[in-house]
């Protein structure tokens, strides 16, 4: 699970072009949106593409992302139980 979390952080940094940030700057249980990293609605769509590309997870309704992207912990749990690749 720790490997998956690290991998997710690296993929997020790359997908959202968070230059000057390293995986250790993203705290496992901190919110990614709003008060935490301060990501926006386009970032949420980028994370949906990330799930599809790297883990074969397709979200029919983008609104589902809100729950899944609450934090790295939640995201990693979701990926571990839903991944198809």
């Amino acid at each position: 699970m720790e490997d998956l979390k690290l991998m997710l952080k690296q993929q997020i940094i790359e997908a959202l072009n968070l230059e000057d940030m390293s995986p250790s700057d993203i705290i496992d249980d901190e919110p990614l949106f709003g008060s935490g990293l301060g990501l926006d609605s386009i970032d949420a769509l980028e994370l949906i593409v990330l799930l599809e590309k790297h883990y074969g997870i397709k979200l029919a309704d983008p609104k589902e992302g809100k729950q899944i992207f609450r934090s790295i912990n939640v995201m990693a749990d979701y990926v571990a139980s839903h991944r198809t690749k």
Partner: protein
Amino acid sequence: MNIAITGYGIVSALGVGREATLDALSHGRGGVGRMRILKSAHCDLPVGEVPLTDAELADIAGVPCIDVPRSTLLGIVAAKEALQNARVSDVCEMAFISGTTVGGMDVTERLWNKCDDAAVCKTIAQKHSADSCTRDISDALGKFGFMTTISTACSSALNAIIYGADLIRTRRFRRVLVGGTEALTLFHLNGFNSLRILDSALCRPFDESRNGLNLGEGAAYLVIEDEDSALDRNVPVLAYIGGYANCCDAFHQTATSDDAVGPSMAMSKALQCAGIAPCDVDYINTHGTGTPNNDQTELTAVHNVFGNAVPPFSSTKCFTGHTTSASGSIETVICLLTMESQTAFANFSAKQPIEGSNSLVLAKAYNRADVVMCNSFGFGGNDSSLILSRYALAHNDEPCLELALQTFAESCENPDECKQFLGPMQVRRMTPQMRCVVAAVHKSLRKAGIDKPDAIIAQTKWGCKHNSLIFLNDMLNNAEQELSPTPFMQSTHNTVASQIAIMLGCHGYNSTIVPDMAYPHAADTDAVMLLQTGVARSVLLIDFEEPDIEWDAMLEKAGAEIKHMANATIIMIE
């Protein structure tokens, strides 16, 4: 001075020309349906296509169709009808202002993977840009005295009307052909799809269940002129342009703000420009795309401006689809048909209007429509509003033509310079050239001694080609699947001017111009017109062209000029 409308032409999913359009509108017959002309992996998405192939359009336009962008063909068809309708035979004393964003993107999509051939590169270099679309339309009509292209995404055509009206108000031209054109392309179909804002069923503006927009295509142009010019020519005046305003939400590149600053300001300032009160408006043609975000924000704005006395309003997007850069002029023509027939065309797909939309027109309604407002909003928070009237509205707003101006120019070649002005979260999506623009803008403001300008105008030929190419390559190489929305969001020409508006919190006039090579000063002219009409006392003019390895290699093979720049100039009244 009164600005009269003396002719118009239109082509959309409702058909070719005024008669077909009015017939479809008055019988409640929408044009959104199965995709037949465009060949896409997403053929299950409903679209508002013009029901004619490129060859059939070229035949009507009277031009050859090989490697001619579909936007150009649509534009010629609509523009010819407009000129004929206004009884104009010679355009040499007229200006031509056209709005488009995709330009020749359909041709580029077909040819991009064959770029090792110099002849192919030449075609792309000649046909891709928005200004070449305008030039090719004008070549089919005659030789205009001036022309330029406005590219502010979905509000392009309305901003072209505004530019044209200002040319008349400031007495540069007596008669102008204005409007916009946009054909469906794989590029923006996939772009909107990557933003997850396309409905897989018919769009339902202002309905509780609305779930996105349907893309459409088409073109519409209007002949507008100084009323005395219409009298001199002895042609009937169909309606008047009463007032208009272009404002900027300055909130986000694609999302609209919850408090609706941009659209509220555009509507209020348009009323102010027309010299009328909100209660004088009989009908509002909303932008009403059917996305959850747009409709809620627009409704908030309508309530901000009209309070509890909201006049009847409708969205005709369920008829035509969202015709993006052409929507401003297509819907202006629909407003003219509304005024002519005194009929509000129903927002027929809505069954359960959202709270606060009691005035939504759900079935065709006959009512007074002497003063009509037409809204057009775009990516980048480019929000514009136009007031049309059947009778001349008396207002005295003589522009001040004699002005003493001062300019403060700066440029930047090192993207890292921007880091002294912005933090990492603000710059993370910016291309190196965009970063140079940020630095140049800050330096020019410092030189001029002001915090922010009243208006922002950007000029560019190729626009944001770096992001455009990232998205295009992804789309072509991944069979239109798993596309990242960020490059598309930043592919429109107006990305630069809107990013700067967001950075500076500048809600004033915001436009992006693609000048024609014969008239390179179109953006400077726009700036001076804003100062003359009192819309602004200071204007920021951005001149940018970004490097891109692939694009520049294509231009080199085509033997075309390659330029890179990031310049910012403040123009102020002394």
